[in-house]
């Protein structure tokens, strides 16, 4: 009745209109619109990230048959297992070494590309991006074949220069190096393209000013290029650290954790324990270990990025 203005009394009609206006105002508020527009993304995050994460936490508190609550038993058992500590070490070693190598090689490649005249730059950029766009499972298969003990083309090349055969996937340290090599090969182009974009955004006049101020080419790199790129470098390193730390496919295809589980990282070990050995709660507990380590990294990196942004932009 109230909504029907023609039959309602004056006072009630205006109150009804007032409510409708308030609704309209609410719908028109920027924050409301912003919330509605981000709703699809929020639902994806809740469905694909928050729910599985919460479910993993729940799973990790169950017993092996998932019939009863087991508290922190899974974690306690993991802490007592040597294999788990080996996996933790291998994950950190793999992620840190691979990211450092990717960042350095990417930086070097970006510099090389930056100094190629624009005309020729495109084709080099395209070629150097190839490792990054091939599906990693496929390219890793290619590498696996190159590391194969009987047909290793890398060993053949080494034998040409009289270097003795290397047991690439047979010895655990060589296998770890092989995994890092493949990861670097796949991931360095990403760093290259990010750094190239960052290099292009450094104003040429800063270099000219530094040249006149007396800076050598190394000093220009140290005092102009690196500080100007610091934000991109830290964000790229953080992003890559997360992805590398959670890497699964390379280890799975190349070594499958072997020899003797010595090349497992968190993701492949969680899969091994949870799916292949059928201990889902323990597997969930393994995978949960990545989170606090990465959260800590992200916190420090993002804090320094924000601080720099405030000072410079």
């Amino acid at each position: 009745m109230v909504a029907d203005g023609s039959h309602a009394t004056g006072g009630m009609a205006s109150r009804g209109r007032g409510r409708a206006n308030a609704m309209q105002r609410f719908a028109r508020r920027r924050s409301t619109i912003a919330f509605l527009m981000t709703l699809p993304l929020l639902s994806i995050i809740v469905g694909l990230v928050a729910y599985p994460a919460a479910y993993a936490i729940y799973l990790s508190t169950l017993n092996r048959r998932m019939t009863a609550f087991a508290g922190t038993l899974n974690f306690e058992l993991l802490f007592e297992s040597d294999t788990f500590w080996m996996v933790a070490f291998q994950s950190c070693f793999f992620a840190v070494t691979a990211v450092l190598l990717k960042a350095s090689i990417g930086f070097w490649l970006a510099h090389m590309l930056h100094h190629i005249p624009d005309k020729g730059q495109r084709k080099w950029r395209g070629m150097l991006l190839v490792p990054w766009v091939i599906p990693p499972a496929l390219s890793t298969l290619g590498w696996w074949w190159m590391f194969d003990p009987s047909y290793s083309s890398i060993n053949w090349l080494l034998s040409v220069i009289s270097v003795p055969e290397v047991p690439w996937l047979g010895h655990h340290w060589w296998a770890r190096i092989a995994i890092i090599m493949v990861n670097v090969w796949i991931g360095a182009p990403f760093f290259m393209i990010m750094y190239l974009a960052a290099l292009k955004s450094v104003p040429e006049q800063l270099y000219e000013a530094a040249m006149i101020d007396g800076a050598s080419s190394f000093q220009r790199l140290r005092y102009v290029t690196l500080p100007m790129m610091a934000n991109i470098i830290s964000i790229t390193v953080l992003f890559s650290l997360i992805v590398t730390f959670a890497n699964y496919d390379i280890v799975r295809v190349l070594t499958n954790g072997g020899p003797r589980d010595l090349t497992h990282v968190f993701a492949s070990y969680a899969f091994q324990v949870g799916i292949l050995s059928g201990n889902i709660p323990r597997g969930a507990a393994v995978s949960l270990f990545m989170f606090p380590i990465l959260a800590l990294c992200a916190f420090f990196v993002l804090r320094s990025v924000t601080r720099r942004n405030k000072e410079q932009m």
Partner: protein
Amino acid sequence: MAEVSVRKVVKAYEGNVQAVKGIDLEIADHEFVVLVGPSGCGKSTTLRMIAGLEEITSGEIAIGGTVVNDIPPRDRDIAMVFQNYALYPHMSVYENMAFGLTLRKFPKEEIARRVNNAARILDIETLLERKPKALSGGQRQRVAMGRAIVRDPKVFLFDEPLSNLDAKLRVQMRTEIKKVHQTVRTTTVYVTHDQVEAMTLADRVVVMNHGVIEQVGPPQELYHHPKTRFVAGFIGSPAMNFFPARVENGSGALRVLLPNNIVLPVPADRTARYQGAAGREVIFGIRPEHLTEPKNLDRDNISVFEVTPEVIEPMGMETLVHFWMQGAEICARIDPTTPAEPGRPMELAADLNHMHLIDTESGRVL
């Protein structure tokens, strides 16, 4: 401090495009020289060649008697102020100013002394801890100058340093730059496209066009005795008026025929100078202030004629009168108290003591 010599310097780019076509210029110790000209005239390229940021295609540049063609910028002992300041955004004002000295391994106390001294000259002592982001355009400009001053180089190079500032600040910083130069007396080469900046700052102005030097001289000389039509038109605001004209020998005296049948007798002291142009088409040039009410001029050598103003622009201390003559827009400068109205004919007089005749073909002032 040192003198700068530019000898037969050419800058050619790919495809044989010459930006600078063999210029010669001698800059004395302590001198403030301004290179001025329209965009693309080669002035910035010349400055960058002196700085060592551009290679010299041929010719020779010497700073303080040493040929620097193959010496990198950092060893030329120069300092440069860029149009967009080029301050290092991640360094504080102090670090920005100290950077050049730190790289040259000066002792800490000496660096502090020099930076503080420069900060005092430029009145930026309170800003030393700030990052460039927290500074206004004018303050950034001061820091950029401070960075140059602390180095105590042989030569200061300025590349359009005031172009990014608003009009009021530009005038203020112009005075500031002049003051700094009077204090430190470092040889200075300054590039600008603004002829007012050139006139106010320079000991000598170098007018460039199409990669060549049109004229070099003190501001007053360029203003009163331009050597080419380009310089005559470029220096001065509002610009000099040009009319097509003809020089004739009539009834024993030399005279100039303008459109609308205006006949101007050539002043006696210029007869010999213009005699050679008799019978030829020339361009007649006269500045707005020499085209004014008859009462403002001496009676000698003036020519009075009537015009119909189209636009009147009162500027406060003067009034500009625009009118058309044979398709050319002409500007005259009159007293602000003189009544003038668009469409109402008025009398103006040309002061022939300040006229210029320009050769149509060569563009040279006769």
